[in-house]
């Protein structure tokens, strides 16, 4: 009896150890953000809330016989979200300290006038973290045991998350970059990522400025097969009144051509680069 009990306990422990050592999920693949353009269709960056979203222009079946009456298309009402700040800051936007709210207001004034001066991506600079995780044009995730690489089609932006236990050194902390320096570890099926060493000349989201003290924490996991979720928390003691949280979701694409990204080569369109 005693021997049986010991065997049973040993078996249970073996299962528990096996579970703990179970390989983490493989995030590798090409993903498209869910509702990247606001779900309205036909909009460059989606539509503002409130207005009824017309059916996507592409809803007309391309294979319809020529004799079939063509559905009249609703007129497009907007080509992009109003991102110049003329509607003020959304209640869900990061809450800024007075110093950084003043920076945002100055930038907004310039943008309302039509200036692209504050738009890094218009200069082909990387969007930086955490904005790059919008992944509006799709992302490719490449995963190995020791490193996960995220690649964004928009501006060919790249970030690496080290999983081998290394930590940012003083030299790295002294050398801020657009994507920053990311280290991660697994908590069950969730990848927990810390990002530091970020430049202060990028925007959190919606042209929200931040300081060089910004750090980003993420919890990334599959919420269902093929649907990846990134819960992002941004902390910045100088620029933000309190940490700001947002959630991004992406769908893994399985069929060509959707499971591949196209080259972006942004400098092609910059003056004198051609």
């Amino acid at each position, binding site marked *: 009896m005693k021997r049986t009990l010991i065997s049973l306990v040993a078996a249970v422990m073996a299962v528990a150890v096996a579970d703990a050592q179970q390989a983490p999920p493989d995030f590798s693949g090409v993903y*498209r953000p869910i*509702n*990247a*353009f606001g*779900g309205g*269709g*036909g*909009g*460059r*960056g989606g539509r503002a809330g409130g207005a009824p979203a017309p059916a*996507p*222009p*592409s*809803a*007309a079946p*391309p294979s319809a016989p020529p004799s079939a009456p*063509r559905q009249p*298309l609703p*007129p*497009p*009402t*907007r*080509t*992009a*979200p*109003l*991102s*110049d700040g003329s509607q003020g800051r959304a209640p869900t936007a990061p809450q800024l300290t007075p110093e950084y709210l003043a920076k945002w207001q100055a930038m907004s004034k310039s*943008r*309302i*006038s*039509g*200036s*692209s001066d504050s*738009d890094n*991506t*218009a*200069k*082909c600079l990387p969007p930086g973290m955490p904005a790059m995780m919008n992944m509006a*044009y*799709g992302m490719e995730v490449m995963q190995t045991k020791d490193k996960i690489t995220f690649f964004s*089609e*928009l*501006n060919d932006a790249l970030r690496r998350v080290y999983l081998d236990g290394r930590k940012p050194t003083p030299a790295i902390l002294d050398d801020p970059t657009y994507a920053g320096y990311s280290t991660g570890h697994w908590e069950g099926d969730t990848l927990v990522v810390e990002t530091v060493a970020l430049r202060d000349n990028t925007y959190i989201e919606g042209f929200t400025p931040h300081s060089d003290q910004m750090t980003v924490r993420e919890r990334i996991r599959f919420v269902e097969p093929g649907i990846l979720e990134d819960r992002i928390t941004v902390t910045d003691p100088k620029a933000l009144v309190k940490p700001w949280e947002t959630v991004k979701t992406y769908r893994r694409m399985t069929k060509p*051509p*959707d499971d591949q*990204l*196209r*080259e*972006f*080569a*942004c400098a*092609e*369109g*910059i*003056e*004198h680069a*051609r």
Partner: protein
Amino acid sequence: MKMRIIVLAATVVAALQLGEAPLSAHHSNVAFAVETVLTATGTVKEWQWSNPHTWLIVDVDDGKGGKVEWAMEGRAPGVLLRAGWSRSVLKPGDKVTVHYSPSKDGSKVGMIARVTMADGKVLPNAPPGD
């Protein structure tokens, strides 16, 4: 001598800029009145399949029997591919109707909302479902 070189260089730079304007301009959305969408009909002069934005150069009917050249900025090739466009979907001479947001500065530059071709085919500026 030095002066002549500077003048020559300035002339070359000016010529390069003239040759490219306005097509090389690279805008963010804030350059356009995105809440306004207007319609223009005309003939394709040039279709530039380039990053980070495509450009559709159109001779637009001015309503008085004349033509005015407009530069219509489209989204990136990667996105447009997924929305049903291609490098060769538009050719010089094609008749098109362009829905666009006008530039805030009043120049003859617009941001494409969608394009309808002569055969009725619609080219949207976002992939289905987005």
